[in-house]
């Protein structure tokens, strides 16, 4: 069964030209890579385009892939990170806030007003997050979308677990401060 083949075996076979093994890796990681890119770009169109480029590049270079003690997913995330960084540079535009209805909401039944308020809060939070440096955005997405541990994130970002933990703490503090500043500005604007 394909599901019984682990990543190392699949990578080894894919590197030898076994296309079905690469297909197996694709099936395992396409959603994760897509989610990561979606939150880095803010829209489905660019997320699809960049996801396609990630796997095209991965397939092209799979024969030269070397196991350096880093998971295969880390290699894919690095490709994704580089492509997104290039995308930001080439487009020179701010990340879009996701506009799709029902974005990030659970399946619970809510009153439309409560739903709208929650959606606006989420948008406001994401707007602050998109103002952070890229490495901090990457950290938050890997932690809260992919639910990776500090050790796993460290392998992807090329940092130690301790460095990731420290960066995470600093990120939360700066995020909190930024939110407070924006809330204060909002209060002043509303008070006028």
């Amino acid at each position, binding site marked *: 069964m394909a599901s019984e083949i682990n990543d190392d075996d699949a990578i080894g076979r894919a590197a030898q030209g076994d*296309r*079905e093994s*690469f*297909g197996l890796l*694709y*099936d395992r990681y*396409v*959603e994760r890579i*897509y*989610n990561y890119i*979606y*939150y880095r770009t803010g829209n*489905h169109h660019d*997320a*699809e385009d960049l*996801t*396609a480029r990630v*796997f*095209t590049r991965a*397939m092209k270079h799979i024969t030269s892939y070397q196991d350096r003690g880093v998971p295969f997913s880390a290699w894919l995330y690095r490709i994704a990170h580089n492509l997104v960084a290039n995308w930001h540079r080439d487009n020179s535009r701010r990340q879009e806030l*996701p506009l*799709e209805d029902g*974005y*990030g*909401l*659970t399946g619970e039944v809510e009153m439309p007003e409560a739903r709208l308020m*929650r959606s606006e*809060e*989420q948008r406001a*939070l*994401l707007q602050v*997050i998109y103002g952070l440096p890229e490495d901090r955005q990457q950290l*938050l*997405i890997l932690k*809260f*979308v992919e639910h990776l541990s500090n050790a796993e994130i460290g392998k992807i970002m090329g940092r130690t677990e301790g460095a990731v933990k420290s960066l995470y703490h600093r990120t*939360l*503090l700066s*995020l*909190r401060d930024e*939110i407070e500043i924006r809330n204060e500005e909002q209060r002043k604007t509303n008070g006028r």
Partner: protein
Amino acid sequence: MNIRTLFSRLQHKDLSRLEARLDSAFRPVGPRPEFVKRLRFELLPPARRHLLGIAAGGWQVVMLTAAGLVSVALLLHNGLRMAAAVLGALGLLRHARKSNAAQSAVPMKTVRQ
């Protein structure tokens, strides 16, 4: 409880609330199934032999190959026979012309009485 401990606890509570908000904001959205399927097809198009419905290494491949070779051999054979027939016909024609020409050149003997 000293001020430092109190501040630390408040900060911890603050950050915990922020983490809860982040958890709520970052929900996996997932790609469209059509996109996933289409990209897979583009990256890994099915092999042509599968499109023809012929399994790799199957007996059908052997039979088709044999049939092709026999057809080519028959074509060559017929072609050679045709060429031989044409050459033969040309040869006969030339011989006939020569014979006619030779008969015309010999003078008729007159009988003198």
